[in-house]
């Protein structure tokens, strides 16, 4: 195993373990903090894959933006803060079976596929991404703005006070 492999395992373990904590923690605040590590882990994996821009965005937006917002939300809403979540394991059996099934399928597919290796030095991806957004994926990029607008309207409508309805 090379050094990169070790780093991969560290990040992967961090991601999975903290992910499990997010799901199973009894308090929302623990979940939110665990999510921080999950995001970090994923960002690390992006770096390992040579996706520098993605890793940076992941940190900036998810850790710097979304997570902080989430924590503020949790802390300022005392009722949520106190809420003890019922993370009962009602469907643990079926859930495990299905998860095992998914794992077997993907592991199997990953093993039998002959992955092409691109013998390329790590290079900055920012420029390439910018080019794609304004070229090949222009439509998707622009349409995403409509998507955000729709999400905004929908959210605004759902949280509107009842008497306006």
């Amino acid at each position, binding site marked *: 195993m090379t050094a990169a492999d070790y780093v991969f395992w560290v990040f992967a373990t961090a991601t999975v373990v903290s992910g499990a904590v997010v799901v199973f923690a009894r308090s929302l605040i623990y979940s939110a903090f665990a999510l921080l590590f999950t995001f970090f882990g994923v960002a690390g994996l992006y770096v390992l894959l040579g996706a520098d821009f993605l890793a940076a965005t992941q940190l900036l937006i998810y850790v710097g933006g979304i997570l902080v917002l989430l924590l503020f939300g949790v802390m300022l*809403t005392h*009722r*949520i803060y106190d*809420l003890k*979540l*019922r993370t*009962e394991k*009602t*469907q643990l059996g*079926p*859930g495990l079976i*299905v*998860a095992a*099934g*998914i794992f077997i*399928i993907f592991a*199997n*597919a990953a093993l039998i596929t002959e992955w092409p290796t691109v013998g390329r030095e790590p290079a900055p991806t920012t420029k390439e991404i910018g080019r794609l957004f304004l070229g090949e994926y222009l439509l998707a990029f622009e349409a995403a703005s409509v998507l955000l607008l729709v999400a905004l309207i929908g959210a605004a409508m759902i*949280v509107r006070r*009842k008497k306006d309805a």
Partner: protein
Amino acid sequence: MLDDPLLKILPFAILLLPLGGFVVLALFGDWIKRDKEETGAAWLACATVIISFGLAAWTTVRLYGLVAGEGGLRFFQPYLGYEWMEAGGFSVPYSLLVDPLSCVMMLVVTGVGSLIHVYSVGYMAHDEDRVPYFSYLNLFTFFMLLLVLGGNLPLMFVGWEGVGLCSYLLIGFWYRKDSAAAAGLKAFIVNRIGDAGLILGMIFVFHAFGSLDLVDIADNAGSLAPEGLWEFGPATIAALLLFVGATGKSAQIPLHVWLPDAMEGPTPVSALIHAATMVTAGVYMVARLGPLYHVSETAMMTVAVVGAVTALMAATIALVQTDIKRVLAYSTVSQLGYMFLACGVGAFGVGIFHLYTHAFFKALLFLGSGSVIHAMSGEQDMQRMGGLRKRIPWTFWTFLAGTLAIAGIPFFAGFFSKDEILAAALGHPVLLGIGLFTALLTAFYMARLLFLTFFGDFRGGEEAEHHLHESPWVMLVPLILLAIGSAAGGFVKIPEIVQPVFRLGHGHIPHVAWLPVAATLSAIAGILGAYYLYLAMPELRAGLASTFRPALRVFAAKYYWDDVYNGFVRRVVVRGSDLVLWQGVDNRVVDGAVNRTATITGALAEMLRPLQTGFVRQYALLILAGAVALLGYLLWP
């Protein structure tokens, strides 16, 4: 096929007249009803059908003016100029088919239909829903004509479904009676099962012939390789599936259960739809596709055996019925079995012949029973009748003609057609035996009906006796005309007229001299038996009843078909879906979720609650499980 401009138009006119009647009545019915002249709607409906009959007769005459083509067949295919459905190599045009077979059917439908429309004017005179009644009757006539005139299977199927719909509306006409509404629904559901067979059969026919046109099918069926017994080639599968449809519509085993219940409808409806026309649609279809059936020995054998067994079974059930209309209903099922028996042994023309004579005498018997019921102020139980001969003589004499015709007494219509059927079955001793025995049973139960109703002493009490009255002329004239048909209709050589349609050669049936004698003797034996048991020596009945008790119990229970079906539906279908889908998933999930969420109000925290109930998790788990199954299948080596 010559160019006859009139023949291009007439069939459409025949079709559209009753439809026009329906449209007028449906749109302006309220307005007509408000008018003081309340029979206006009724006579309008009658007029459309009577004119249709006139045009049908004219069409038939014109058709016989044409030069016969190959095989002596005269036919004409009027085309509206539009396609109904069209796709690569598949087209269903709006075209009709006028040939001897459709002419016979058309004349039966409009002829008997006219008489029953007229009869209804009197019978329904006091019903407040007359306008919808006559509009349904007109609509029925339209669909029935479409069924027999349609030039391809899908158009025939439109008529087929349409008559089913009207039948359903008319059975449930007195829907404030629960039994009537239930009977209507039962008829529709059972028929849907048959229709499923019909649709699939149609698809198979298309893949066997590349066409759904009736002429194409008849022309090309001869070139299919014959399929022996237990050989399931395309023709056999198509024919058997179509026959499932026929068993539904024509009330054959195992889908016969709806017809007796259909007697909940008004009696003229029973006469028109459940005796003379709609229920014979299955026979018409099998005969129409005769060339296709002829290819498959399995299909022919199935048709013959189902027909024979149904004929026998229904006749035995008819022996023990006490409701006058139910006797006639089982008799209809039995006679339809006869028709299928004829088709199954290859004598399609004879099947049509019996269809034609049956239309006369069964319509007559139903209308006659309607007249009896009318006289009895709605009573249908024969045990409360008796001695009506003197009180309603016109009804009695016409009813007698019908009874003799169905029993097969020589020179009445039924004699000829029944004799031809038995002659056609000569090569199949078992079928022939069943046929002869059924003839005896038929004579017996009809004579029983006649004796219980018209002879002996009146058993209905003084009050009812006081009300006894003969029906008005508007009801008696159709009875008299039908009685004439039942007496003399057998002299028209229908089998010879329609034979060219089947492309099976001349189709002469070898006759043997002893057969008519045997048939007549069995009819007389049946009548005599009924005479002794019900008039001369009724005390014998008790002894016989105890001897044959187990058999009679089976007859009275109608061979338990209904119980088995009800049990199946209740146990398996309803309870099964109840258990698994309603209580197991639906009720618990929905009610549970709703009840829980109902206690929650506002705010983000509470909005998370539905997530905590676990139901969304269940959904997600199910999606995931589905995905695993799906991907697992795809990647399975």
